[in-house]
């Protein structure tokens, strides 16, 4: 059986009064394609279907979506990993406003990212060459800097669903810790002061959906735990 049943969330504000699920049948010729390939085949049939995609190799973070109930990147998710009973259900990332079909408005997600001042801050004048950093210090950034801002984690997080305007969310917090952990950054105290309220960090309830879905295998929950430790250590 190589015909796959695909059900896709459709919504175009210009023509649809409400979102609906549209069913397609796709012949995969038995190949274990990526979900993105399926979407491209569907778009060739129906050019009005809309989704984001760029690098098609899992490093740009464009095509985050919900596939059979789980968030992930369509370009690096093979059918064999998600399809059950020959059926594939594709929805936009949950919790963010839908612009059209599988495209969500990520403004809130980016706003939370910008809030944590996602750039290195060092009050000392820069040397003529690079700032030195030992391999051990650099190792602390592994598992943090690789984030691609795909939003799979934050949009699978109930705490982010309830308070996307106040809770930074797993992606933003992972980035926040990436700078706190950097031996070259001198702004940790200010960074902590900015998020030392009951929402920004502490809305994380350790549900760990973020860890479960991260396409890069990162662990935002652990980073959040580290931030809490720093907040405790700096508390007076």
């Amino acid at each position, binding site marked *: 059986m190589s015909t796959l049943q695909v059900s896709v969330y459709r919504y175009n504000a210009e023509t649809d009064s409400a979102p609906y699920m549209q069913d397609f049948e796709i012949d995969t010729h038995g190949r274990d394609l990526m979900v993105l390939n399926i979407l491209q085949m569907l778009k060739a049939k129906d050019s*009005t279907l809309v989704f*984001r995609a760029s690098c098609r190799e899992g490093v740009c973070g464009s095509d985050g979506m919900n596939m059979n109930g789980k968030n992930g990147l369509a370009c690096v998710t*093979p059918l064999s990993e998600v399809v059950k009973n020959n059926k594939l259900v594709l929805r936009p990332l949950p919790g963010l406003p839908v612009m059209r079909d599988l495209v969500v408005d990520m403004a809130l997600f980016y706003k939370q990212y910008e809030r944590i001042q996602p750039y290195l801050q060092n009050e000392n004048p820069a040397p003529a060459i690079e700032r*030195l950093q030992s391999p051990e210090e650099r190792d602390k950034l592994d598992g943090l800097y*690789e984030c691609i801002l795909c939003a799979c984690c934050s949009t699978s997080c109930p705490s982010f669903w309830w308070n996307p305007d106040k809770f930074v969310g797993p992606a933003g917090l992972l980035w926040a810790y990436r700078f706190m952990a950097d031996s070259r950054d001198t702004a940790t105290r200010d960074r902590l002061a900015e998020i030392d309220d009951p929402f920004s960090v502490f809305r994380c309830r350790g549900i760990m959906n973020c860890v479960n879905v991260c396409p890069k295998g990162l662990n935002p929950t652990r980073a959040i735990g580290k931030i809490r430790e720093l907040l405790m250590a700096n508390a007076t």
Partner: protein
Amino acid sequence: MATMRNLSFDAIIIGGGGAGLRAALELAKSGKKTAVLSKVFPTRSHTVSAQGGITCAIGSADPNDDWRWHMYDTVKGSDYIGDQDAIEYMCTEGPKAVFELEHMGLPFSRFDNGRIYQRPFGGQSKDFGKGGQAARTCAAADRTGHALLHTLYQNNLKSNTVFLNEWYAVDLVRNQKNDVVGVIAMCIETGEVVLIKSKATVLATGGAGRIYASTTNALINTGDGIGMALRAGFPVQDIEMWQFHPTGIHGAGVLVTEGCRGEGGYLINKDGERFMERYAPNAKDLAGRDVVARSMVLEILEGRGCGENGDHVMLKLDHLGEDVLLKRLPGIVELSKTFAHVDPVKEPIPVVPTCHYMMGGIPTNVHGQALTIDENGKDTVINGLYACGEVACVSVHGSNRLGGNSLLDLVVFGRAAGMYIEESLNNGFEYHEPTDSDVEASLLRLNRWNESSEGETVPDLKAELQQIMQNNFGVFRKEENMQKGVKLLAELRERIAHAYLPDKSNGFNTARIEALELDNLLEVAEATAIAALERRESRGAHSREDYPDRDDENWLKHSIYFPAEKKLGQRDVNFSPKTVDTFEPKVRTY
């Protein structure tokens, strides 16, 4: 038209990749009214896919390293049609640009002494080719492009750069003096079309690898900047020079960094033989990319390819050990598992040369000013138009780019363009408003698509274009194939001019964007085809079966393609660096 909204900037940067963001950063810091317009959120730009690193003589792996050695390698790599003044500028300014990136927070990997980690890459040497292999490529594991792009985006946030994210540039706007005075752009979310007026328009739109069916490039690499420039009547340079990266994953086209071979990996044929020892006895697997790609194709053509169809070779990494692979090449391990179903810790990766980089582009000087050629054959600056990064041809890569030089190109010339524009704005800019008819002219093709009522559809035409390029303008090129290709593309141009856009909706209409991109792909493809046919020699990445030798007598020149007459001319290569002696053309062996 009368109701079209206008936006005004001192500088508009089209493209949010490494070059665009680096230029923007320079301008934002200067307080000029700058905006970056990008068809994707900036960190989704193709720079993010760069893996191996940024080549620069920062003297970390070897304290005695010298920018002149880097320059020598780059000139040799270019097969001597890289401009030596530009290469000199890149190699001397490079360390400054790399240290700036580090100060901005780029998480480079490190040596034990705390300095930036550098790995060997193809075509690198010490002491002008006499001192053996150099290690000159600064790396953040195998995710250098990702680290670089995010760092630049973050620092633009810090500098409050204005972003027009998910906006698409349709066409350049020129005034009656043929100066570029802005661009017609579309907000993808709403479909609103806006006239953006700007004293400086910077094209940083990246490459166009999507003209080929198989490419390492992102889906967005459709040559939008080249398309806009050619439609505006401006020429492009060395556009026949397309780099085929030796190691694209067979079947998927996904890139596997040259850093794999830098770390000690090597290619084998079906007999398990390390065949590069035969083709490049000294550099072996770290010869220039053009040399390695051709050797691979020869192995395959001579029946020593791997797999059922004998259509690829293997990249062997397992001997490096799990520790090195997970530490230095973690992204490659991940990609191989996903796209080749192979764990490189245990088995070799099936690879094949795959379209990777456009060496040609819009000719510019080292300040990023776009150039055209006047009727006397003299370089003339196009007022208001700048280009940097892959879309530009400054030219530091000539006919073959060295690995790790593209990221350096982005930051050095993005920075240079930004600095120069700032200075020009301070000195006062002559700016003449476009008339209504000037603006109307730039809306023509958008209106054409919007009014189309029947015809062929975009995906089929695009697939056909990519197949024409793949079949006729690959690693080895033949006169008769290329002639056929040129003819097919001319026919395709007619068909695309009558193609049909079924979806006319406004909000997030990606079908319309793909239609507009198809126009650009066609412009790049046709320029490539005609230039490739006309350059009757083999040099760098341009390899012809009918003219197998380099012809310095007639072709130690840039090719320059004029879109109006569809003619190929020549432009002199710069052989006058300011502080070192000229590197004279020599026979190029590795």
